[in-house]
């Protein structure tokens, strides 16, 4: 059975208002730009977006932000999109800031069926406020809850029709983690191939994590984001 969908709209059928959506990418690098673009066309609101950044001003998730569809952002670095600060100041969006390693590990834990974990990162800082502190072997740690999503939007390089994924350079980033941590996992890729064409030793995300695959129509190039 192929997981290939004919369009981004078909792939996003299960996405609804109020969902928590994990979105891969480090800024626009490795972000699922085609699926994000489709989300901006879809009649949904009150979304919680888990992503390192909220895109750039007017681009990627930045576009979704400007439409007012995002209720809350969970990420590590919102500074790269100045619109986030304006929305936050105006009380139009909630934000939860996590250290980047904590964001990644919380998603990994979510995908691995854990409730959370203890980390030294952030101990004694403003980001530890309200978090349980515990000493383990004489070292102070804080508790961080796992993160899971209703939906994950993933960018990979290639997929086979079963859903095995390989990635490309630093466009990998949060994508393989997010692919493990949501009820519905939707992937866009540069190329869809037949099972057997990907080297099993090189598969990064095994197919059981993946629900739907489309070919990317919006890609990041040296000249910026272009339609292909």
């Amino acid at each position, binding site marked *: 059975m192929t997981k290939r969908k004919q369009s981004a709209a078909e792939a996003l059928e299960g996405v609804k208002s109020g969902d928590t959506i994990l979105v891969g990418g*480090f*800024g626009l*690098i*490795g972000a699922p730009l085609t699926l994000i673009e489709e989300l901006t066309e879809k009649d949904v609101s009150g979304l919680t977006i888990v992503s*390192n950044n909220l895109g750039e001003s007017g681009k990627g998730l930045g576009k979704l932000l400007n439409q007012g569809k995002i209720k809350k952002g969970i990420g*590590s*670095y*919102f*500074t*790269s999109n100045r619109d*986030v*600060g304006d929305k*936050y*100041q105006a009380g139009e969006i909630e*934000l939860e*800031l*996590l*250290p*980047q*390693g*904590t*964001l*990644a*590990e919380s*998603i*990994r834990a979510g995908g691995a069926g854990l409730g959370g974990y203890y*980390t*030294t*990162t*952030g*101990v*004694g*800082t*403003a*980001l530890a406020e309200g978090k349980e502190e515990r000493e383990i072997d004489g070292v102070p740690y804080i508790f961080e809850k796992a993160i899971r999503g209703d939906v994950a939007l993933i960018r990979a390089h290639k997929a086979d029709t079963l859903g095995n994924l390989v*990635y*490309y*350079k*630093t*466009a*990998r*980033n*949060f*994508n*393989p*983690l997010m692919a493990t941590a949501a009820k519905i996992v939707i992937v866009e890729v540069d190329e869809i191939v037949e099972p057997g064409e990907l080297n099993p030793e090189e598969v*990064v995300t095994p197919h059981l994590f993946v629900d739907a695959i489309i070919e990317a129509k919006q890609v*990041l*190039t*040296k000249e910026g984001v272009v339609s292909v």
Partner: protein
Amino acid sequence: MTTMTKQEIQHMIAERVAKELKGPMSVNLGIGIPTLVAEYMEDDSIHLHTENGLLGVTDVEEEDIDPNLVNAGKLPVGEAVGAAYFNSSESFAMIRGGHVDAAILGALQVDEHGVIANWAVPGKNIMGVGGAMDLLVGAKKVYITMTHTSKDGSPKLLKECTYPITSTRSVDMIFTELAVFEVTEDKQLRLVELMPGATIEEVRGKTEAAFIE
């Protein structure tokens, strides 16, 4: 000193901290002056790590730029011979788990015990932290590169940080255009070097933190 441009000052600091690194080792470079350190790396047994998922960062020529190959500052980089890619969780396992030998970071303030503030400014929205807190708890050595004073001329080496701290951990060394400091085992700053053209009087005048001369 007054004849140097901002860019020249940044390069001077980057060149100096690069001399501190002796391979084989892995080094994470932060955003700003730390990024420039890559230009002064001669030793190919020093492997540069970037937290967005690459061990083996090099410079890249304009014609070889790949939009999907960037460093933590989202600037284009190249891929060294023997490079490896990995996801964000593995990347921070390397950092938090103590597998990265050194981190070179910028700072807004450093207190007289080597505790730094580099992620938030009071009165402004707290909008970004990135990998700074993870690097502070996990890197075996942390080197700070920064200009000695802020734009208005006020000292950045203070008795106490007035901005939110990044970690309770003290850094190992601090490099400015005027001086190099190390943090002693009992968490005091010690001046170890004056930079070319700097005088001890100037360093004293522009440093609020107590330091051992």
